[in-house]
C-alpha cells in the first residue's frame, strides 16, 4: 500500500487527511463546489491503490483462470486464488467458503434459488427442507435484496414468510427476534446493519436461537463487513452476502459465504463452464464449493481489486474505522435531533448506530431536501433506499440519508447538519 497508515484504534486528523488524499474523487467538484460525499451506504469511493492493483493485473497478468495451462493463465489463477484467501481472511472465513456473485443481491438470490431448487427435488436434504407449515423469518426493515428472494422462496415452497415488526422509529430488539424464532422457523434472513436506520442486529443471539431450533441463518452483511470487524466463521451463520462496491472495491463483485455443509448440499443456481466435473448431453456433475458456484468466467480483475481494498481497510484497521464511524453516527444523530422539524429514523441518540442517519423533514419532500443539499455539494441519498415496507411503516415515501465511511470528516457531517437546518426555511415549511 502506498500510504503509510498504521493500524490503530482511531483515525486522527493527520491520518484522515492521508486517507482522503488516496481517493481522487474526493477532490472532484461535480456540482461546482467541493464534494461532500455522504452516500457511501449506496456505494463507496475507491482509493488509487485499488485502481493500481487492477491496472497491474489487467496489463500484466490477465488471462482465463482455472482453464488455461499457459504461464499467463497460471499468474492470473495465482492472483485469483490469493485474492480469495485475502478476502476470506478479512471476514474470518475459510477460503473455500467464499464464492463470487455479481453483487450482494445476486448472492442472496443464489441462496434463495438454490433452496427452491433443492426443495423441488424428490429427495430433499433434510437440512434444506422448507415447506408448508414452515416459516421463513425476516424483519420489516430489510433491504429489498434481502426481502424479495425470501418472498419468492416462501411462495414457491408453500412456507410462510414472517417478519419481526419495527416500532415507530424503525427499530426492533433482540427480544422481538427471540420471540419470533420458534420450532417452525426454518430460515432466518436479516441485515447485520440496517442501511436505513443504522441498527445493529444481535446476530449472536439470533444464531444461538436458530441453532436451538435447527434453522438456517442468512446474514445480509452489506453494511457490516465494510465498516466493522466481522468474523463470519465465528458468528456461525450459514450463509452471508456482501458487495465489493460498498467497501472501497470495484462494482461487479459480490461475495457469497456458505458454510461447508450448505456449500456442498446446495444445487448451484447458475450452471455452465468451470463448475463441473463430467458433462454429457443429458447429465452434469458439479465440483464441490466454491467452484460449484462459479459458473463461467469470473470478474477476476474486480476480485483482485477487492483484495486490494481489503488490504487498504486493514491497513487503516477495522477497529479504528468502526470507532471513527460510530463517532460520526453519534454526531449525526445528535445533530439531527437538535434541528427543529427534523425527525431522526432509527436508534435514538445514545443507542448504538452505525455511521448513518436517515431523516424526515416536516413539510418538505426528501427529493427537495436532497436538492438543496446537492446545491451545496453535499451528496446524500433520498428515496426509500430499497426498503419500501420500512418507509411505509414510518409513514413516508422517502427519507433523506447521510452515510459516512472512513474518509468522512466531522466537518462534512457539520456541513450537512448546517444546510439541513435551513431546508424548512427555504421551502417556507413552518
Amino acid at each position, binding site marked *: 500500500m502506498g500510504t503509510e497508515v498504521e493500524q490503530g484504534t482511531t483515525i486522527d486528523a493527520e491520518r484522515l487527511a492521508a486517507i482522503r488524499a488516496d481517493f481522487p474523487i474526493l477532490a472532484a467538484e461535480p456540482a461546482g463546489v467541493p464534494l461532500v460525499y455522504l452516500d457511501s451506504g449506496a456505494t463507496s469511493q475507491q482509493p488509487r491503490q485499488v485502481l493500481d492493483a487492477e491496472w497491474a493485473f489487467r496489463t500484466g497478468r490477465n488471462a482465463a483462470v482455472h482453464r488455461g495451462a499457459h504461464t499467463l493463465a497460471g499468474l492470473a489463477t495465482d492472483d485469483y486464488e490469493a485474492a480469495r484467501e485475502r478476502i476470506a481472511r478479512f471476514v474470518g472465513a475459510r477460503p473455500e467458503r467464499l464464492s463470487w456473485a455479481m453483487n450482494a443481491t445476486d448472492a442472496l438470490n443464489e441462496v434463495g434459488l438454490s433452496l427452491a431448487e433443492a426443495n423441488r427435488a424428490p429427495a430433499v436434504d433434510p437440512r434444506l427442507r422448507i415447506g408448508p407449515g414452515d416459516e421463513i423469518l425476516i424483519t420489516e426493515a430489510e433491504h429489498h435484496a434481502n426481502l424479495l428472494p425470501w418472498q419468492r422462496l416462501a411462495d414457491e415452497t408453500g412456507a410462510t414468510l414472517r417478519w419481526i415488526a419495527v416500532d415507530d422509529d424503525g427499530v426492533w430488539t433482540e427480544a422481538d427476534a427471540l420471540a419470533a424464532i420458534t420450532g417452525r422457523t426454518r430460515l432466518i434472513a436479516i441485515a447485520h446493519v440496517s442501511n436505513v436506520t443504522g441498527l445493529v442486529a444481535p446476530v449472536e443471539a439470533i444464531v444461538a436461537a436458530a441453532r436451538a431450533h435447527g434453522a438456517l441463518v442468512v446474514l445480509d452483511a452489506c453494511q457490516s463487513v465494510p465498516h466493522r470487524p466481522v468474523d463470519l466463521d465465528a458468528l456461525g451463520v450459514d450463509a452471508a452476502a456482501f458487495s465489493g462496491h460498498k467497501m472501497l472495491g470495484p462494482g461487479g463483485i459480490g461475495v457469497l459465504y456458505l458454510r461447508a455443509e450448505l456449500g456442498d448440499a446446495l444445487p448451484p443456481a447458475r450452471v455452465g463452464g468451470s463448475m463441473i466435473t463430467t458433462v454429457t448431453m443429458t447429465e452434469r456433475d458439479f465440483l464441490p464449493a466454491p467452484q460449484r458456484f462459479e459458473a463461467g468466467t469470473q470478474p477476476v480483475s474486480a476480485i483482485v481489486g477487492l483484495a486490494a481494498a481489503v488490504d487498504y481497510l486493514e491497513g487503516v484497521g477495522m477497529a479504528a474505522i468502526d470507532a471513527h464511524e460510530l463517532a460520526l453516527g453519534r454526531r449525526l444523530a445528535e445533530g439531527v435531533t437538535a434541528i427543529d422539524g427534523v425527525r431522526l429514523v432509527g436508534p435514538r441518540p445514545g443507542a448504538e448506530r452505525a455511521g448513518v442517519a436517515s431523516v424526515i423533514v416536516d413539510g418538505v419532500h426528501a427529493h*427537495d431536501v436532497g436538492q438543496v443539499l446537492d446545491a451545496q455539494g453535499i451528496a446524500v441519498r433520498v428515496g426509500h433506499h430499497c426498503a419500501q415496507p420500512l418507509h411505509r411503516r414510518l409513514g413516508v415515501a422517502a427519507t433523506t440519508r447521510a452515510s459516512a465511511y472512513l474518509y468522512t470528516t466531522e466537518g462534512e457531517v457539520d456541513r450537512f447538519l448546517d444546510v439541513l437546518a435551513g431546508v424548512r426555511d427555504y421551502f*417556507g415549511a413552518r
Partner: protein
Amino acid sequence: MSDPLAGLYQELILEHAKRREGEGLIEPYDAERFLKNPTCGDEIRLRVRLEDGRIAALGWEGQGCSISQASASVLAEEAPGLAVADARVRIEALRELLRSRGAAEPDEQLLGDAVAFAGVARFPMRVKCAMLAWVALEEALLEAEAR
C-alpha cells in the same frame, strides 16, 4: 451566497406546490391514470373528463416533491378548456423543453405558467418529477379516446 437553485425553485413553483390547484378526484370522469416514479416514490392519480373534444375537467391526487406537485397544480390550472390536440402539443412542448438540458428556449406563448419549469431542464434527475402529471394526462387522453 447566490442561490444555485433559484432557477429550479421559482416562486411560482413553490407557490403552486402549496396551493395544489385542482386537487381532488372529479366525478364523473372519462379516464383515470395512476403513475408512480419508483426512484423517489412520487405518485399521482389523475382523472379527466372530455366534452366535445375538449378537456372539461381535470382533478388529481398525489404525493411527491415540490416539483411534481407544483407541476400537477399548474397543469390543473391550465388544462381545462383546451382542445385535446392542443393539450398534446403543450405536453410535447414541455417534454422537449425539459429534456433539452437547458439548450432550448421556452415558448411562453404556448406553455403559459409551465415556463416556470424551464429551470428543471438543467436538473435532468428532476425531469421525471416535472413530467409526472403531464404524462398521466397524456395517457389518460389516449385512454379516454380509445373508449
